[in-house]
């Protein structure tokens, strides 16, 4: 174990206290829709300036980890991802909660988050310098192909017609182009409105797309918002553990995907959770259960997004390049502390770095008791709330959350308009998830394409730039297989059915 001599620094009572406080603060902030992990870290950064650098890092890492996990609460209980990373947790978490298995879903999310966080942390501890080079192998072209690969996930995310899913994806891509173009500076599709210059914010769009339709349906009928099973909600730890143990492969795969996506600057927890969710669905023996309350879906999403925390720290600490948006804030805090990141950090400031890494690993373990307790409390109070109070409270949280993204009232308005649009689209058979996928991946795809095109032109061959690079070729192969897979599996199933008959 590298730096084991610093392990004791991370288990002093003060360090543990800081880790617990960080996790609790992070979980609470992350659970509120609209408050992302980035905001949680940014808001709490000033509190860490007086601390020793290693301890300050533990605090920030714990807040980050807690916030990513906290997003699962509102995802499961309200169908609204508390942070974008929890998008895929809504797919199966909310159906489970609706049928009365909310406590099980929360415990599953907690176990998966802890294990994902641990795996990410161990990668950070053991392999940070070599893995950091992965971040550098990804140029604009690789990001372009990766985004296209991400878009093929529409086929596994869309319920109903795949063609409608693809159209939804296009609508999302289109939404992502609104505002001033990153590259080239054109002002696009703003209709002359200054408010739209900054583009559509992903977080407020997410609240609108997922939460407003739920709210509209919530008030339409008097049926209770969650099925009451008559028994007292408990941890259901044994049952959850059985699920997690059976899904060990899914868990490992999702955590590794999460770590790698975390390492890539420009991708983040939301992409990690989307990729591992659809991989889990593709590999599952019961893909038809996904989206209807399948525990494997929650396990995939939650282990992947918590693994991005450890993964994201790899390029942050080794290269000085933030792996995920919260890492950017933490990197800023490090500079304010006077810590110079870079490969030399692991030798010159080994005490700080290893204290932090062990602290992060311990923080993810501490998430287990904290998460279970908070989860149980949140679930019990949510069941007891009468619908007449739940609906206005959720409405208030959507307004508050979308406002607080950038402290802007027009973003709250945007949220409502997008939400109404999503409900109408839903009536025409277009679901929200492909739109979200397009919105998240749009700017990555476009930026990568235009930059790749410019670099290719400068080098003399655009085609070589796009198709001649080794990692690009691997992604292209994955992309083609991903597109063909549904066709192949359908054919295989038909054959099976014919044989059975």
């Amino acid at each position, binding site marked *: 174990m590298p730096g084991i001599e610093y392990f004791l620094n991370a288990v002093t009572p003060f360090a543990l206290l800081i880790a617990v406080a960080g996790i609790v603060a992070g979980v609470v902030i992350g659970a509120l829709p609209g408050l992302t992990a980035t905001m949680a870290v940014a808001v709490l950064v000033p509190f860490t300036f007086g601390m020793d650098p290693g301890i300050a890092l533990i605090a920030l890492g714990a807040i980050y980890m807690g916030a990513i996990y906290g997003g699962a609460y509102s995802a499961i209980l309200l169908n609204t991802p508390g942070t974008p990373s929890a998008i895929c947790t809504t797919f199966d978490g909310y159906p489970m909660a609706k049928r009365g298995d909310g406590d099980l879903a929360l415990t599953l999310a907690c176990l998966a988050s802890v294990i994902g966080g641990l795996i990410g942390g161990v990668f950070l501890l053991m392999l940070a310098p070599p893995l950091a080079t992965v971040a550098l192998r990804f140029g604009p072209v690789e990001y372009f192909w990766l985004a296209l690969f991400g878009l093929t996930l529409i086929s596994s995310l869309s319920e109903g017609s795949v*063609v409608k899913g693809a159209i939804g994806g296009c609508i999302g891509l289109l939404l992502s182009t609104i505002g001033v173009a990153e590259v080239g500076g054109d002002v696009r599709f703003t209709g002359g409105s200054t408010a739209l210059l900054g583009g559509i914010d992903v977080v407020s769009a997410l609240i609108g797309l997922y939460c407003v339709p739920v*709210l509209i*349906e919530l008030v339409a009928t008097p049926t209770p918002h969650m099925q009451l099973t008559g028994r007292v909600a408990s941890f259901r730890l044994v049952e959850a553990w059985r699920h997690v143990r059976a899904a060990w492969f899914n868990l490992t795969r999702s955590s590794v995907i999460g770590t790698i996506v975390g390492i890539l600057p420009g991708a983040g927890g939301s992409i990690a959770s989307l990729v591992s969710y659809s991989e889990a669905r593709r590999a599952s023996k019961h893909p038809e259960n996904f989206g209807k309350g399948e525990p494997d879906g929650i396990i995939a999403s939650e282990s992947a997004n918590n693994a991005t925390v450890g993964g994201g720290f790899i390029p942050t600490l080794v290269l000085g390049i933030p792996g995920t948006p919260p890492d950017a804030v933490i990197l800023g805090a490090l500079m304010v502390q006077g810590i110079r990141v870079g490969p030399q950090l692991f030798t010159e400031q080994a005490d700080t770095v290893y204290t932090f890494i062990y602290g992060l690993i311990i923080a993810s373990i501490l998430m287990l008791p904290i998460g279970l307790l908070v989860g149980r409390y949140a679930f019990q109070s949510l069941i007891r709330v009468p619908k007449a109070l739940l609906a206005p409270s959720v409405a208030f949280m959507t307004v508050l959350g979308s406002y607080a993204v950038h402290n802007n009232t027009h973003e709250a308005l945007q949220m409502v308009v997008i*939400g109404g649009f999503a409900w109408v689209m839903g009536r025409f058979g277009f679901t929200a998830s492909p739109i979200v996928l397009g919105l998240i991946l749009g700017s990555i795809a476009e930026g990568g394409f235009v930059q790749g095109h410019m670099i290719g032109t400068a080098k003399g061959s655009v085609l070589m730039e796009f198709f001649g690079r080794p990692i690009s070729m691997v992604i292209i192969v994955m992309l083609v297989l991903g597109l063909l897979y549904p066709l192949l599996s359908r054919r295989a199933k038909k054959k099976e059915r014919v044989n059975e008959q």
Partner: protein
Amino acid sequence: MSNSDSPSRDVRGIFASCLIILAGGLIIQASSSYGMLGSVFPRTIGVTMIVLAVVYIVMVSLGKGASVAPLDGSRWRRIAIFCVLLAWTLLLDVLGFLTASLAGYCAALLIANFDHWTPRRAITYCGVGAAVVVGLFLLFGQVLKVPFPTGMFI
């Protein structure tokens, strides 16, 4: 879930597809005014949207495609809650964040309640509502330092 064997065709889907073809055309037209770099992407999306919508129309006319199950429940409540949200967010700057939210909360409460109003229920619900709104408002404003708009009131 493709219910290709169901008798009902996805007429709504055809209607939506027509709108999307129209939208695709408008996008292509709008992007002609942008620079080379800025127009490639929107134009590609516009074309893809048109193609996909045409494919969907063809699919439905061949008897495929997925229609949406009809809704049950109250239509006026659905429309009302959306209007409340719209008014709520539009009034944030005019009335002030807290006032608009208290008003919005009450309106949403009226829409969401299916039981009979008794004095006791009214008092409990209003009390809890006020506590939720004011509590979160203070948490965000005082602890998390989120600046709220102040209009006519707070």
